[in-house]
């Protein structure tokens, strides 16, 4: 059966739908920091007229900007990934007391299974901890509607409203129906409301009471909400579920009764009791933490949950069937085959590669950070010894130094990207200066926030719109912070950079090296072909110094027995290396390492 095509629908991702929803809700100001899987929301929102959007240096700043805009009486939104909400948690917990004037929505995107994250975190816990309502859509169409409802709820209850999505909402494309842009009811203006905007203890104590009163009202809203729906079916098994898990349940158990919770928090206790009483066996199906399960059990209702459903990673229809009724699985399935792995890798021409190649040859502990350069960990470079969170590279290096004293001298290097340095590395560097660190920090300045897809940052010289902006001078900044030895290197000149990196590590004082070369994926560089480097196979002696930098565009061809001699090479030569000119991005790092004239600039005139 093929349904009639619905009129005026658009096929879009969850992130596009959220941007559209915010636009339709009349959002005026939006701020955020890029983070997979949330990044494209702000990018899409920046394309709408009448909405001010920006990239903030970090999520805390982004949320504070949105709070300010809400105080000014306009609808405002902050977007971030789950770990970004940790950074923004400080303003969030007090904004829960202040409320605002214009609707304030805080969007957080969780990444179950850690497709592009350093941990797996369930942001629903923040709704409980900060005493705030939270909504969670199941697909892009709902995402658009829920954002609009979140703004209304925020104004009705005078508090920020959290909207949680996961990777399988953000990066899923589905059919969405666009609507009209609303004219918000609140009027913009500078109004003073010290009783709720100034959170001194005396005022905060009064607002604390309001927070409880608000959540009591919100619980009633949850009972009546059309987003918390009972779908009556076979009473044998009943499911409490929501978000993308709802879709897996719907597919695995199409006949079952379902209570779908679109409002994650607070919970509709009466509705849950009524539903639980109507089914023989109750299952709570949720990704990650047993968030609902704990609260359902606290109501004295017995149910299955994490006793059968995994608390780790993503769910899918197969996992839901396997956990509850394995007989429903498709027949036999194949096991994976043993194959050479294909992990993500730094791109051909990536400026970070040369620096990591140098570091991999020094006996140092490399304190890393969050970004493309985290891939320096992978073979053949193996040049990263710790990665924790945004900005942690600098203080972790400092902590190691303080723990080990003189034993750590000339043995610790911190590595951080430009965007991450601006996000939260600067305060760490201030600490290193203030408390007398002697290590070396390398700022990998590729002029962009590369991992999330080349968003500009305060050191890039451009705004989210692409218009030019004041750019932070990283060299001057480090000097102003009190770092006495700041040098700038071109990472593509590997031997030259190596000299400086070695000298700074040897130095018995704090130093910063700024490795400056743009990301090769920046649109303005991407199509700067033709490629000028190529391999003179005749000159290759098989020394593998180009292979060892681990560039995806360079590959090794081994000689068969006797082939080396037959082709006129030394008998002992084991093979030769070659550049794939389709993949090559022309950085020249390999050429700077080749001592045999086997990788040379092509004579463009020939």
């Amino acid at each position, binding site marked *: 059966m093929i349904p009639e095509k619905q009129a005026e629908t658009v096929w879009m991702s969850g992130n596009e739908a959220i941007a559209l929803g915010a636009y339709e809700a009349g959002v005026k100001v939006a701020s955020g920091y890029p983070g997979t*899987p949330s990044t494209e929301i702000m990018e899409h929102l920046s394309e709408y007229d009448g909405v001010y959007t920006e990239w903030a240096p970090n999520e805390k700043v982004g949320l504070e900007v949105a709070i300010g805009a809400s105080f000014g009486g306009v609808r405002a939104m902050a977007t971030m990934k789950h770990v970004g909400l940790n950074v923004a948690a400080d303003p969030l917990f007090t904004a829960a007391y202040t409320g605002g004037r214009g609707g304030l929505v805080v969007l957080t995107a969780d990444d179950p299974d850690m497709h592009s994250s350093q941990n797996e975190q369930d942001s629903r816990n923040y709704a409980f901890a900060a005493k705030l309502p939270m909504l969670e859509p199941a697909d892009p169409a709902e995402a658009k509607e829920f954002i609009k409802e979140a703004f209304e709820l925020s104004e009705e209850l005078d508090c920020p409203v959290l909207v949680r999505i996961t990777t399988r909402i953000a990066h899923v494309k589905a059919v969405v129906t666009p609507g009209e842009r609303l004219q918000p009811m609140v009027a913009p203006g500078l109004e003073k409301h010290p009783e709720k905007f100034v959170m001194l203890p005396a005022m905060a104590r009064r607002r604390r009471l309001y927070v409880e009163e608000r959540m009591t009202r919100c619980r009633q809203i949850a009972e009546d909400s059309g987003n918390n729906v009972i779908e009556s079916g076979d009473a044998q098994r009943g499911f409490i579920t929501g978000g993308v898990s709802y879709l897996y349940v719907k597919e695995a158990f199409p006949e079952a009764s379902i209570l779908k919770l679109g409002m994650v928090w607070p919970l509709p206790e009466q509705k849950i009791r009524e539903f639980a009483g109507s089914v023989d066996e109750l299952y709570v199906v949720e990704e990650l933490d047993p968030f609902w399960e704990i609260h359902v059990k606290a109501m004295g209702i017995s149910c299955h949950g994490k006793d059968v459903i995994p608390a780790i990673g993503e769910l899918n229809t197969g996992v839901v069937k396997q956990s509850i009724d394995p007989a429903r699985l498709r027949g036999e399935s194949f096991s994976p085959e043993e194959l050479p792995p294909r992990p993500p890798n730094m791109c051909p021409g990536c400026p970070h590669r040369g620096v990591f190649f140098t570091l991999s040859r020094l006996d140092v502990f490399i304190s890393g950070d969050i970004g493309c350069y985290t891939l320096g960990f992978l073979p053949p470079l193996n040049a990263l010894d710790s990665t924790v969170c945004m900005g942690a590279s600098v203080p972790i290096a400092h902590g190691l130094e303080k723990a080990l004293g003189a034993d750590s001298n000339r043995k610790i290097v911190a590595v951080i990207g430009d965007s991450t340095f601006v996000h939260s590395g600067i305060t760490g560097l201030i600490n290193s200066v203030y408390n007398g660190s002697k290590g070396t920090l390398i700022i990998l300045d590729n002029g962009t926030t590369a*991992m999330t897809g080349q968003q500009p940052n305060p050191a890039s010289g451009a705004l989210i719109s692409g218009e030019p902006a004041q750019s932070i001078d990283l060299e001057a900044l480090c000097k102003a912070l009190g770092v006495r030895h700041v040098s700038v290197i071109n990472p593509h000149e590997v031997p030259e950079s190596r000299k400086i990196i070695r000298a700074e590590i040897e130095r018995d004082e704090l130093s910063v090296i700024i490795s400056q070369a743009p990301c090769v994926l920046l649109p303005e560089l991407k199509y700067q072909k033709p490629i000028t480097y190529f391999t003179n196979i005749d000159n290759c002696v098989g020394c593998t110094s180009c292979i060892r930098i681990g560039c*995806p565009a360079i590959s090794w061809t081994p000689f068969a027995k006797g082939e080396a001699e037959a082709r006129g090479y030394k008998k002992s030569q084991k093979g030769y290396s070659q550049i794939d000119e389709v993949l090559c991005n022309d950085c020249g790092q390999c050429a700077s390492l080749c001592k045999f004239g086997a990788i040379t600039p092509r004579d463009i005139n020939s």
Partner: protein
Amino acid sequence: MSETTNILFSGVGGQGILLASELTATALLAAGFDVKKSEVHGMAQRGGSVTAQLRYGSRVYSPLIEPGGADIQMAFEMLEAVRYLPYLHAGSTVLVNTQRILPPSVATGRADYPEQVLDRLRQRNIKVIEVDAFAIAKQSGEVRTANVALVGALSVHLPVEEKMLEALIEERVPPRFYEQNLFSFRAGRQAGNG
């Protein structure tokens, strides 16, 4: 949910899987189906193995294909055809670009590219259709049209109109590359019949 059809796209980051799956999905939407597509961005995209999952039918719930559930796999590279075996079942069809892109361990001489790797699919009663998309793209005069050749090969197996896809390609690719893309699409359709 037997009326939902599942297509798994697999390949190496940078091969144009996004555009290929997008063209396919748009054609299916135009044919009146409900379509959902799931993909992963960020770190997973950097030159590593990537997938996109596309499902279509009268009403699609889950955005993800369950293990063993892929009816068709469109593989952009041979190793990446075999890597997702747990998604396939006996009787699945795998269209595979016969290109080899060396993973790091092979490129650096620490491992070998497996020989006759597609036999591992055939042994399990999976129908394999080989498409030399790189050769088609070279013939077209623009090597970056390999992904459109693969869309052509895949489209033979889907309830979509050839003309409609050609119109979509015209809409989506830069005008100066339209002829080359059209050539690759048509040659891909020829190859897709196996």
